[in-house]
């Protein structure tokens, strides 16, 4: 059991207490996560690393409210997720979470701007689509459809979409998994900028160990358990990454 890093109570945006998740796959019971305890401070950039099947995506899904723990408690911004019903979880995702997926998951019939508006119209005080597109450097591509954008551009639109709702937490699942090296670095730079300038808490899931070096904190999972949880005292600039 690694040492758990405890943040000051007032700074905690996300708290997991003895969280486990078990799936039933036919006759086999799969333990995706076992006894996870975590405190994440507001404004942190946390990399969650681990090989396939280590439980990192499950962890992200639980925090994102699209999956429920088999046991344990998850509290986000003072909201206990297990107390929420389907409607409450929808509202939680709407107001507190921004998702960035590996496969971008843009709606192909909407332009970049419309994809952002589609998410922004769900919240009371959204950020202007053009503003968030400017943040990711795609303002001039606002009226293009996903099929007219490169993979990197699509992922930047996805980040802009997540930002548009102005959520306190961004959950990014393998955001560079479908991108080439240079584009991947560019995306990570954008994320780091958003983290620093907007103060967003970012949980970045990746199997690429090198990417961990850009984060403030690195959590390593294996077989559903945390095997390493450390503060990265000197995170490097994403542009300096090599893998």
């Amino acid at each position, binding site marked *: 059991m690694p040492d758990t890093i405890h943040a000051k109570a007032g700074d905690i945006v996300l708290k997991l207490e003895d969280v486990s998740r078990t799936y039933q796959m036919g006759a086999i019971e799969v333990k995706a996560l076992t006894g996870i305890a975590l405190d994440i401070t507001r404004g942190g950039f946390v990399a969650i690393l681990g090989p396939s099947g280590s439980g990192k*995506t*499950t962890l992200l*899904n639980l925090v*994102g409210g*699209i*999956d429920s723990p088999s046991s344990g408690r998850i509290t986000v911004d003072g909201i206990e997720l297990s107390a929420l019903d*389907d*409607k409450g979880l*929808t*509202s939680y*995702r*709407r*107001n507190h*979470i921004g*998702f960035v*997926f*590996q*496969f971008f*998951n*843009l*709606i*192909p*019939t*909407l*332009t970049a701007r*419309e994809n952002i*508006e*589609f*998410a922004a*119209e*769900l*919240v009371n005080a959204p950020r202007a689509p053009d503003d968030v597109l400017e943040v990711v450097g795609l303002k001039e591509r606002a009226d293009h*459809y*996903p*099929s007219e954008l490169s993979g990197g551009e*699509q992922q930047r639109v996805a980040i802009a*979409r997540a930002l548009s*709702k102005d959520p306190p937490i961004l959950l990014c699942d393998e955001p560079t998994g*479908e991108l080439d090296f240079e584009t991947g670095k560019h995306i990570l730079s954008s994320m780091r900028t958003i983290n620093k300038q907007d103060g967003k808490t970012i949980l970045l899931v990746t199997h690429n160990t090198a990417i961990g070096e850009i984060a403030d904190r690195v959590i390593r999972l294996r077989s559903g358990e945390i095997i390493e949880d450390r503060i990265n005292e000197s995170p490097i600039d994403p542009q300096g990454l090599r893998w």
Partner: protein
Amino acid sequence: MNRLKRISRHRLRRKLLRDLSASKGLFLAVTAVIILGVMFFGATSIGYQNLKQSYDYSYDELRFADFTIKVKEAPVEAVEELESIEGVASVTGRVNADIALALPGAESKRVLARVITLPADNRPAVNNVNLEEGSYFEAGDSDVLLVEKSFAEHHELEPGGNVILIADGRETTFGIAGIVTSPEYIWPAKNRQEILSSAETFGVVFVTEDAAIGLTGSSSINEFAFIVEQDADRDAIIAEAKQRLRTNSTIMDVVPREDQPSNTAVSMDLEEMGEFSEVFPLLFLIVGALATYIFLTRIVHNQRPQIGLMRAIGYTRRQVLIHYLSFALTIGVTGAIVGTIAGYLLSEVVTRFYVGILGLPYTQIQIQWLPIGEGLVLGIIPCAIAGIIPAYAASRLSPAEAMRIPAPAAGRKLLLEKVFPFLTRMSSVWKIPLRNIFRNRRRSLYTIIGVTFGISLILVSAAFIDSIDYFLNLQFERIQKYDAQMVFSPTQLPPATMVSEVQAWDEVDRAEPVLQVPVRLFRGDEEYTTSAVGLPPDSDLYRLYSTAGDRVNVSDEGILLSGSLEGVLDTHVGDVIAVVSAGVKEVQFYQVAGFLQQPMGAFGFVTLEEAQVLAGGQSVISGLMLDVHPDYLDSIREKAYTVPGVASVELTSESNDKVVELMSFIRNMMWIMLGFGAALALAIVFTTVTVNILERRPEIATMRTLGQDKGRIASMITIENLLLVIVGIIPGIPLGYLLAIYLFRLFQADIMTFYLIVYPTTYLWTIALIIVILLISQIPSIRHINRLDLARVIKEQST
């Protein structure tokens, strides 16, 4: 090598079955369309063949006449003369007369009886009868008769019972020797003008020639029924027979077999069934093919990586092609076999139901291999054709390309948005559905076609139901305003002064005279045998309506003709037609003053005075139409029979009930058709909606992950489908209407005229029904997306 091939075939077969099992909802929906189409085809076409054979067999066995000539009077010896005409196989001479009949126990009640003679000692060479109960005549019989089955059943007459025939006021009691069916009265029509005759007031009885002499006091005959030799020139024989008969008698009418009232009615029914058996299954099978195409396209699309793998590990293009074609063939073969079996079983029900209603003398239910084979082919071929395109596309995929993650579907701004820029600013709840319609245009088109065909089928059926209602309403509510009609025996027509006598009855609020005179109408080369109906110009109990629907009255300006005669006589308003009646020697000429809406029969309407001129200048009437005081509706018949010469009293309510009963078969058929149409729409909408939603699972999961609630997503899906349904409705309504016009031409005969009517409310409920179908068909998909495992589905590749 062969062993390996066998193994791979076995593996692919197993994969096929498991893939189908995984998509069983869609598989069943698509197969259901094929089953319905083939079943409908089987039920109607096998039923049609069975009925046609039953009719043909009955006509052959009972030697149904090829044509009949009615004369005023002719000697029995004329038969021999006519038999000598070259090409004539047989001739029967007989008496055919309408006289009054009274039933035992209800002597005051009269029925108009069609009395037809038959030889006592042997069966007639033409128009034989089939003995259903009792016995045939014996030589010397003169006091027994045979009763036609439908009349006997209606009045519960049995062999051993009695009826009374009343000729010239003389009552003669006859014993009932037997109950028979006749090829001339399979559909017991009084004549072409009164095709829907009620057994309550009209029946057919057969007596011996001796008995007829006793009734009429004459040995002469008035009708000749002919059978011609095969390949003989019937028209030439008719001309020759007329020529020979003219020397010693007056020809009243010539009725070829196809114009014989009963045969016309059953032929119309059969034709209609034959037409339905072709048109409706065709719609089903087109939609079935579309649904198969949509289903298989989705399977191929979803299985791209599997196809890539199959090709990569060594399966040939041919194997891939056959494997994916097998999906379509499985649908086709399953649909064809199940549909054929169901259709075959249903055809027997249809045949027996139909035969039961009409009481056909002989029923032929056989295995009809041709329609069975056609049904199987009709089920399989469209599916095979629909399947070949996606299966071929699957076989042409390169392994590397197939296993690559597909690029996002191309999005584009719609032309509509360019023309109407405000659309771009719509909420995504409207924008996404609108763009989705154009995202997979081919599939949207198929949904639209499915809805179009579905709504057409529903509308055609509804149009028939509306038109039957209109038919009944027009005849019994708007035209026939009288409660009862006293019909006098043709040999005992009372003077016109009878009106005031009856008008004075307490039971009668109003009485109006009518005089029906048998006539032949001529216009150029066309001729038509019917009745001239004389009415008072101010008649209120029998109302006339122009073809435009306006109320009109008879006048001295000319003759008003039933609308169907416009085509039959090829005449127009202002033309002059010739009218020949037995009562006057000179041909009368009348100007056509207009055409009328006339659902039942086809007549010429003139003033009562003109009709009396045609009747020979006598001031007589043939009937009295009565507006009966409501308190006396039950007793009016009894009172009316106290008047001498009354042959029958027809109550409008009874006639209405009889027509409703006769119409019930087609009406029920139409309700079944409507159900089929609804099922078709449900199946196609379910298929396309389900495929659309299943393909967009990741997209929908993303929406929900972003925080869109279930209701909003369901709204988007509903809006998209509603837009497609609305687009489908636009061509569906006119297509349904055109289809109804096409099928209605079968009902356009002089004997019965249907007016194609679709009430505005019918359009509304048809549209409402299709929307309800849509809402029902998307329930499973919406339930499915509400239960999506978001964490898993957002990882899938959206397209």
